[in-house]
């Protein structure tokens, strides 16, 4: 234990030391600037604002660099702060220092553009962004010395080569305009990026990008006012610097938010203890990423699925990142989140660890659901194949045996008519025809049992009308349908009615029944009731079980209510898309 606790203590002591050192350096720089300003007669408020901006960028840059050493955003931010400090050298008495300050005058504005566009990685991603930032640097760093050499800062400047102040000043105005234009283009770029995200932004991220946009707009306004001069310039400048100085604060708030988010891991553990059905919502809360998606790896299906066991692909969108949760080296789940979360590795690791067992359970549930889906699919296919086969047999009977028997019977009838005398032969022929008639009636029953041809040819309403007519009790039939349905749905509905009416005839001792078929809200509801003695066998009877199979294979539901004395009610709900 002692060794374990000693190491963080050393780290804490070192970071306190480093932090203190950085603070000292910053304080010294700030103090130096203020001293220069006081000596140079610079308005205290102006000096204070410059120091505020320089300090906020430097400090935020240092913190970001320390927390994410691999990310270039922190150093870039620090550089912006340092460049801002450098502009204060303008106030110095020493010519060399003052010249450095003058050369750096516009550099911070371009660095800020660079910084904002490079968020969050510290790298510019598009060619347009590189072009904008490059143009800015050319104006701020490349053109500024030329303008000074041409006399933009007066004839006494040590860098003066040719005294052409009009040209020099025009060049300087040109710099201001170029930088304000690229800044405005930067605002447009940020707006476009926010739009393109197209999904809820992580908390504080939206605020941050908005503060960046506002900062760039303020730079543009400040520089344009600078070109056209006017008494309002100092006010605009001060407001602008104040606003621009807030961007690092918003950025730090985001970093701190990430730190605070780690306490959310504690809440997550509590939430997971309640074994929620949906893991996504608590995980999204803990990670502060409403766009979070959870996928599970099902090795048996060699596929990623969502929590319902439906196959899904891992995203290829670069703005989305995937964090794999593994167990014994095999993937269990994947968190699909905003790529910006990759910067918060520790949070991701903490959340992954806290949710590992819950995710394993979630995976088993997804697997179960995938199996259920598969079984349901194969049951539907088995039933559909059986139905097709029965339909084929019915058709063969109709076109074959039945047709031939009718023709044979007709032949016999004509033969009988042509035999004049011989009553014995005529009687035998007549008997033969009676036999054929009986066979035909039997075949007709067989064919109808195989597949109700009237259903596929003429629809559910006509087929049910015939069922009702053949029922052993009077049936009140109401059918409300908008046209034909999918064949499997029609067949299932038909068998629900046919089986129920047959049961009524066999067991119910009923004197009347009602059959209703209605279509509403994307489903067909078939209901058969009788006024018999009730007590239908809902478990043992293969008839009702077979019906339930048919109905459930179509994602429908079959329910039976039965109580002695108040009849039986069979209700099937069948989705029809």
């Amino acid at each position: 234990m002692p060794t374990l606790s000693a190491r963080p203590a050393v780290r804490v002591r070192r970071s306190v030391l480093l932090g203190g050192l950085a603070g000292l350096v910053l304080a010294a720089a700030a103090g130096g600037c203020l001293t220069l300003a006081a000596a140079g007669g610079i308005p205290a408020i102006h000096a204070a604002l410059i120091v505020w901006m320089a300090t906020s960028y430097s400090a935020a840059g240092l913190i970001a660099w320390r927390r994410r050493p691999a990310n270039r955003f922190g150093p870039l931010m620090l550089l912006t702060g340092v460049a801002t400090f450098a502009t204060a050298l303008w106030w110095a008495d020493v010519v060399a220092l003052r010249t450095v300050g003058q050369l750096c005058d516009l550099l911070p504005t371009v660095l800020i553009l660079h910084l904002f566009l490079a968020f969050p990685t510290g790298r510019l991603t598009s060619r347009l962004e590189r072009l904008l930032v490059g143009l800015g640097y050319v104006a701020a760093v490349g053109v500024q010395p030329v303008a000074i050499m041409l006399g933009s800062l007066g004839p006494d400047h040590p860098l003066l080569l040719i005294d052409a102040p009009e040209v020099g000043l025009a060049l300087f105005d040109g710099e201001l305009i170029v930088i304000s234009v690229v800044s405005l283009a930067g605002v447009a770029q940020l707006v476009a990026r926010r739009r393109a995200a197209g999904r809820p932004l992580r908390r504080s991220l939206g605020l941050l990008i908005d503060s960046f946009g506002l900062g760039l707009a303020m730079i543009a306004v400040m520089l344009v006012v600078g070109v056209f001069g006017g008494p309002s310039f100092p006010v605009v400048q001060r407001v602008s610097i104040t606003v621009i100085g807030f961007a690092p604060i918003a950025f730090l708030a985001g970093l701190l938010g990430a730190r605070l988010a780690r306490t959310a891991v504690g809440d997550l553990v509590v939430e997971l203890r309640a074994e929620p059905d949906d893991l996504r919502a608590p995980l999204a809360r803990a990670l502060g990423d409403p766009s979070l998606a959870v996928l599970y790896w099902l090795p048996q299906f060699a596929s990623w699925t969502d929590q319902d066991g439906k196959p899904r692909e891992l995203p290829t969108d670069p703005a989305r990142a995937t964090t794999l949760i593994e167990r014994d080296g095999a993937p269990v789940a994947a968190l699909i989140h905003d790529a910006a979360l990759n910067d918060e590795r520790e949070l991701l690791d903490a959340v992954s660890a806290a949710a590992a067992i819950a995710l394993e359970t979630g995976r088993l549930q997804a697997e179960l659901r995938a199996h259920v889906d598969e079984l349901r699919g194969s049951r539907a296919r088995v039933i559909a194949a059986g139905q097709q086969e029965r339909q084929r047999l019915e058709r063969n009977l109709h076109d074959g045996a039945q047709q031939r028997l009718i023709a044979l019977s007709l032949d016999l009838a004509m033969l009988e008519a042509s035999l004049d005398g011989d009553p014995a032969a005529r009687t035998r022929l007549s008997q033969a025809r009676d036999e054929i008639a009986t066979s035909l009636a039997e075949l007709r029953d067989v064919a109808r049992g195989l597949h109700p041809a009237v259903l596929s040819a003429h629809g559910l309403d006509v087929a049910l009308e015939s069922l009702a007519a053949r029922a052993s009790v009077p049936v009140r039939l109401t059918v409300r349908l908008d046209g034909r349905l999918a064949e499997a749905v029609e067949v299932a509905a038909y068998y629900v009615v046919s089986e129920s009416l047959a049961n009524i005839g066999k067991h119910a001792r009923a004197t009347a029944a009602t059959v209703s078929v209605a279509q509403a809200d994307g489903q067909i509801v078939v209901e058969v009731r009788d006024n018999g003695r009730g007590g239908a066998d809902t478990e043992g009877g293969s008839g009702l079980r077979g019906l339930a199979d048919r109905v459930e294979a179509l994602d429908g539901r079959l329910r039976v209510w039965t109580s002695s004395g108040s009849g039986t009610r069979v209700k099937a709900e069948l989705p029809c898309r």
Partner: protein
Amino acid sequence: MQVAIAEDSVLLREGLARLLGDAGFDVLGRCGDAEELRTLLRGRLPDVVIVDIRLPPTHSDEGLRAAVEIRAAHPEVGVLVLSQYVELGLAMKLLAESAEGVGYLLKDRISDVPDFLAAVRRVAAGGSAVDPIIVSTLLSRRRSDDPLERLTPREREVLELMAAGNSNQGIADRLVITLRAVEKYVSSIFGKLGLPATGSESRRVLAVLMFLRT
């Protein structure tokens, strides 16, 4: 009397044609599907068309649709629909507009030659023919407070023949009783069932079926 036949089974089609030819009918045309039948009717109109309910190409309701179409376009042409299954729902559909000049029989009935020929003649003349199996199915079920129980056995027989589309004379011949006796039975049946008396023998077919269905 002129007749056209639409039946996709060659065996049956030729058998029917021979049967009708022997019985003195003039077989105007015979064909295997509904499209051919339509073409045929664009020429001369027969007195009656005999059509199989299940015809190519899909073997579903082509025959029935052709029958309904012919009834609408040529009310003077009788239509006798033949089928291997007889369904009340289809009978109601066929008879819905009017039972005049409409017949619907099981194919099995063809071999009861005299009855079948009588049915063809009746439909050709604007009468009707409904397969007896429909009426007997409807009559066979149990009912509470059944008005049919008030009918005498003889009246039940008359009711069945009436619902099958037979005329009073036809019923008289069948039961070997006088026309006068049939008329008495008919009015007694209508009285007992509470049906309004109707003049036309075709219209009473539908009335009786509607009554039995409920």
